[in-house]
């Protein structure tokens, strides 16, 4: 072929060696144990979608964190296509999670490597692969309308409505 010799990837395989498994390690990008129980399709389908997804679930946000803040932070790993704020199903107010969709998978991977586990609004936020936004998934699945984790938690979290819902009802 008359192509120019390329650096990197393909050329590395040409060199008698390839690469080393310790250098291939990319643990921040690997799938977590979590699978969406409401996902319509097989486990295999879900994992296939997760592996090529450009969408991240972002959790442990403060209820007061705005789309603008999320855009600024996650924009550091690449151009954002869309931010969808997670809402309380009843109140329709922010309930502490969101989805961030990138145009390119590589940008989402860099967010998993470098933004996951760092702070936004002084809280350590967590990102995870999402199979893709579908209408309805922007709502919390807890009985009270927020996220499940806020139903039963015992601690006081000023950024997430104070005590858990069950505790509040006592």
């Amino acid at each position, binding site marked *: 072929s008359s192509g*120019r*010799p*390329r*650096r*990197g990837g393909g*050329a*590395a395989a*040409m*060199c*008698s*060696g*390839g*690469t*080393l*498994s*310790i*250098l291939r*390690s*990319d*643990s*921040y*990008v690997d799938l977590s144990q979590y699978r969406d129980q409401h996902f319509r399709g*097989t*486990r*295999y389908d879900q*994992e296939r979608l997760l592996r090529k997804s450009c969408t991240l679930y972002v959790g442990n946000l403060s209820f007061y964190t*705005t*789309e*603008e*803040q999320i*855009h*600024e*932070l996650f924009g*550091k*790993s690449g*151009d954002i296509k*869309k*931010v*969808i*704020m997670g809402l309380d199903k009843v109140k329709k107010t922010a309930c502490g999670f969101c989805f961030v969709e990138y145009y390119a998978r590589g940008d989402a991977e*860099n967010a998993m*490597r*470098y*933004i996951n586990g*760092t*702070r*936004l*609004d*002084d809280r350590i936020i967590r990102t995870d692969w999402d199979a893709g936004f579908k209408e309805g998934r922007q709502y919390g699945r807890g009985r009270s309308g927020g996220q499940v984790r806020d139903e039963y938690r015992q601690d006081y979290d000023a950024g997430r409505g104070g005590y858990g819902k069950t505790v509040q009802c006592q």
Partner: protein
Amino acid sequence: MSRRRHSDDSDAGQPHKRRRTSEPSEIEERLESLICRVGEKSNSSLESNLEGLAGVLEADLPNYKSKILRILCTVARLLPEKLTVYTTLVGLLNARNYNFGGEFVEAMIRQLKECLKVNMYNEAVHLVRFLSDLVNCHVIAAPSMVAMFENFVSVTQEEDVPQVRCDWYIFAFLSSLPWVGKELYEKKDAEMDRLLSQTESYLKRRQKIHVPMLQVWTADKPHPQEEYLDCLWSQIQKLKKDRWQERHILRPYLAFDSILCEALQHNLPPFTPPPHTEDSVYPMPRVIFRMFDYTDDPEGPVMPGSHSVERFVIEENLHCIIKSHWKERKTCAAQLLSYPGNNKIPLNYHIVEVIFAELFQLPSPPHIEVMYTTLLIELCKLQPGSLPQVLAQATEMLYMRLDSMNTTCVDRFINWFSHHLSNFQFRWSWEDWSDCLTQDLEKPKPKFVKEVLEKCMRLSYHQRIIDIVPASFSVLSPANPVCIYKYGDESNRSLPGYTVALCLTIAIKNKASNDEIFSILKDVPNPNQDDDDDEGFTFNPLKIEVFVQTLLHLAAKSFSHSFSALAKFHEVFKTLAESDEGKLHVLRVVYEVWKNHPQMIAVLVDKMIRTQIVDCAAVANWIFSSELAHDFTRFYIWEILHSTIRKMNKHVLKIHKELEETKARLARQHKR
């Protein structure tokens, strides 16, 4: 032939698993793991681990020789920070099995030639260094190494080749000398002197017009930003003056001297550098970034001077560690902090300097900027008692030298510092920087603080920033990012278009269609024309103003609201902004509404380009227009411009690729 697939549609994961090569590949994985991890987390010494591993590998040679060769060649190429560990291992193997040593050297030469052919010059340097350290391990005879270097240096005599080609061969030669200079000089001093003299004359005559372009600071004080080959040359000259005594590099092979000196050495085959071709792409020249010297840490170990070879070796190794582990930030931080020699060198200072060297590298950092922010945070977590202080000291020094810092680097500094602060509750001793308040606000220091505060606000909210800075800093605080709606107040009712704006507001709130919007807008007179030609929608700035102001005001609540508005009324936008003047005016109105909220302007411009309401040319014209001249040195303007250019580049690449693919498809069609 049955095409029935392993029927597994339910939970068990992927339909087919590769089982063919599991047994041998398990052994290969084990060998690779043993080799890669030698010396890590062990109770025994590195030397006894190496000896043990050499024994294991020697026993495996009959069955797995080619795999072992492949793995060793790969670690030579990809783990340069552990160079001397693996040359020692090869030395021990060569002592036990001379043929294996010979085959390894041959494989290395093949790999070197391959790397040079496919432009993998950085990896090739590692291979050359590995070969030269094999001289110290009695695997390769010193005279044959000198001969190879003679061929390298003679590249400088080639005519009509790019300077960067000669640069690489000189770099490969000089940068191996910290490891092998002593041995080569002892065996072949006359030849080495000749090589060094040829090198010197090449360095004197080569062009260095790239240097001002690549320097992070324009000032030479406190540390000159040296061209990389000039710096390396000074370091090698000093090494030679010190009689090639080098004390930093860990040399495990010294412990095995009695074994290794019994080994038979191999001669390198004569090596002809592959000729320059049209497709050759050599590494770019660099400028060495320095921000610290021994005076910056008076209490700790002495930092090796800028022209010491130790400094070169430490920096090379730290850069290699980052290159190896950039995807794994915790591993990267741990590996950096466990760099040997911790108590003899101010390691934290070296690490911080190397990280900033990469972050500020021109034209671009080797890795994505946010990686460095997060890596520094990981390092602070692992060394909470010492690293944050070094980082604070570095920040202070960078602030002090803003006056001569390259603007692109200042931008990166702002982005890094604001993001870093947002992870530490924005705690900073702002009063220490009160000196900037007395300066003209366009000067680098106050401008830097202003931009940092603006970026900090984007990551939090306006009141937070007001709270974290002393009251005296209010002149540098960012504006409250609120929307400015010119038709908002009853007092503005005399403005032309005011009543239409009111009408539009009600219509939009009542979910009017695009057609209804058009008919409302028909009533807006065109200040540019005497008779309103509303058959075609010629450029009517007032229409644009009324529509865009009103819509953006109604959608001001969040980015999503604004994006929905752009999408819903896309047709109206396209019609109003059909002409070039229309596009420019839309951008002007967006600015007027959102001038307090540069972040909003940036995302709106991005969306409008992507939905083709405006084009890149309009954005460029708007940015360079006289109306925006007062904001020309604000970083958000350049953020928008760079983002626009990037989108344009990506788009061009994408359609170029589609064109090539279509051509290829057409060619295949014609062949049939």
